[in-house]
């Protein structure tokens, strides 16, 4: 019975197996890269996180003590808190700027490609370079913003923007929005352009106003695009490091230590590679969780019209 079954099935199975095998070969180079540069480092990081692993000297197995320590680490908690705060503020700010910009450059008008280019230009500047540029712009004596405020008579004396938390945070938010909004705009623009003009026209004939068309037509059709832009923006913000390291070195009185900054400090300033590894694994878990939630939102978008 079994012999009979397998005999009749075998040619079918062969046919089915071959494309699968060939597909594996096709993705093998990509898989090799992912395994070599992502999976293996992650496994090694996980292994390190179970040790007391100083940068110099011997390592010692300590089980899950690094993970336990994390929960009592007030500085890690405040880093998480600050990162969450930053992510929320900067994401809202980026979308508040990028969406109107996308709508603005979507319509065919004179110089539209010039506008697109100008708005996109800061994106091609590296984040570290942009941070350095803004350190100079915000410099109290030889910069641009402070002396300009003074010259315009809006301030008695040039303010030191990076000296207090609020003004330094505002400066960084403005810098990041200037740098990133163009990229989000391009993503949103592709979503806008994918909406068939017949739909908009039909809605207009039905008497829908401008706001109604945006609320009930544009937004639902862009759900997938918005989800993509959101994932990129949120992930990027959670991994923020350069701007705080370069512009404020952790901010006035350490109030701008993001999670990645804290991991860097633990690993390469305090030389606790093991604890840094444990923190990295925790951050990875947080990012995966957030991305799953966002991807779930994306699938909901697929089901709806």
């Amino acid at each position, binding site marked *: 019975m079994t012999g009979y079954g397998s005999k009749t099935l075998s040619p079918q199975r062969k046919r089915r197996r071959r494309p699968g095998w060939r597909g594996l070969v096709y993705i093998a180079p990509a898989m090799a890269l992912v395994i070599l540069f992502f999976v293996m480092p992650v496994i090694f990081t996980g292994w390190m996180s179970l040790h007391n692993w100083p940068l110099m000297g011997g390592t010692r197995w300590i089980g899950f003590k690094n993970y336990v320590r994390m929960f009592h680490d007030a500085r890690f908690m405040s880093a998480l808190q600050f990162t969450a705060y930053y992510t929320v503020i900067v994401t809202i700010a980026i979308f508040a700027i990028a969406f109107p910009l996308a709508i603005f450059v979507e319509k065919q008008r004179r110089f539209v490609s010039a506008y697109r280019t100008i708005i996109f230009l800061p994106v091609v500047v590296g984040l570290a370079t942009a941070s350095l540029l803004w350190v100079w712009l915000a410099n109290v004596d030889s910069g641009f913003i402070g002396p300009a405020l003074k010259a315009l008579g809006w301030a008695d004396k040039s303010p030191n923007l990076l000296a207090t938390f609020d003004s330094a945070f505002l400066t960084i938010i403005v810098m990041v929005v200037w740098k990133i909004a163009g990229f989000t705009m391009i993503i949103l623009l592709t979503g806008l352009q994918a909406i068939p003009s017949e739909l908009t026209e039909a809605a207009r004939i039905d008497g829908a106003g401008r706001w109604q068309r945006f609320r009930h037509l544009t937004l639902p059709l862009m759900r997938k695009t918005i989800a993509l832009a959101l994932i990129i923006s949120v992930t990027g913000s959670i991994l923020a490091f350069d701007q705080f390291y370069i512009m404020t070195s952790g901010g*006035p009185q350490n109030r701008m230590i993001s999670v990645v900054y804290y991991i860097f400090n633990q690993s390469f300033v305090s030389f606790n590679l093991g604890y840094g590894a444990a923190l990295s694994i925790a951050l990875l878990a947080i990012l995966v969780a957030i991305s799953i939630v966002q991807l779930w939102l994306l699938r909901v978008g697929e089901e709806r019209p």
Partner: protein
Amino acid sequence: MFKRLLAATSIATLCLVSGASAAEKVEMWVRTGVGDAFKKAVESYNSSHENQVSMTEVPFSELVQKYATAIAGGQAPDALSMDLIYNPAFAAAGQLEDLTDWAKSLPYFNSLSPSHVKLGTYQDRIYGLPLSVETSVFAWNKDLYKKAGLDPEKAPTSWDEIATNAEKIRALGDDTYGFYFSGGGCGGCMIFTFTPLVWGSGADILSADGKTATLDTPEMRKAVDIYRNMVKKDLVPAGAASDNGANFLSFTNGKIGQQSIGAFAIGSLVTEHPDINFGVTLIPGATGGTSSFAGGDNFVITKGTPKIAAVKEFLEYIYSEDGQKIMAKYGSLPTRGDIADKVLAGLDPRLQVGIQAISVAKTPYTLQFNDLINSANGPWASFTNAAIYGDDVDGAFSNAQSEMQSIIDSGQ
């Protein structure tokens, strides 16, 4: 043609090989920001010796982590000019060559800078020897003193006097300021220039065994008050609040009346900014006395290097009178007390103040210097910014005190 080429290359290769076997080439790292003293000493050694030293400059803020990762990766240089405060940590990690027997055989061992040797000693073995000495001193701009109607030759002896002078200098004009310090969370700058106020008055920020943080003392409160008042009266440029050390030498721009600087800076002021007419004196304590921070570099040898004989020969050259003279000329104070007068003869007399400072100077001994003091995100760095610029001085004291203690405890 081809044959000739081949012959030429093989001869060249032979030369290279024989050259390498005759003389050792020592790889050595040195941090940036310590002036030209060491560079010039290396040049003069290379021109007069068969062995050669190849020097690589590494940014001062990254030297420790670069060296640590290089050791971990087996790529470490043979020797290193290491900021002496890191010496205990590296010695404790077992990464440095034990120099005890050789060091004690040097005839001038007992006259080597004592605080350097102390920092180079771990569990009674010596792992580091003094390479360059730097102390912090108080500098004032004589031209600005004269313009403000002060006696340019009279060194201030108390912080009351410094603050009064600062007000007079500030009155000179918009962009002239009475005082400067790097207050934007630069732990290294502030331990160098600000703790002498506390030390001079007899207090300290750590207990003698380094196991208790003793930040909250009346002397520290007074020192913080002195700086706070000068900031409040607008005697310090606004940029100081966020200066993380990049503009530490603002004194060189000629618009700062007074600032605590290092002896290396005396050398570079003399050689590179001859237009600045300045005087130096010891840093007064907050409630009397004087003090200084004895900093500088120790010479350490990576454990297991095969070129140890050549490295020792180079260090003996540094300790020779010639070597010491070259170092001193470019701002590094003599590390050998017995020939200091001979070495400094004919050099700028202001360097003598740097030498005097050695006798009153202190250096904290702790394995966690980076974590506690130097890190831009450590408790000391944020304390100095919060206490001097923040609104909640008491909070700054209690936060820093408890955070320092918890770092010390976690390292036990």
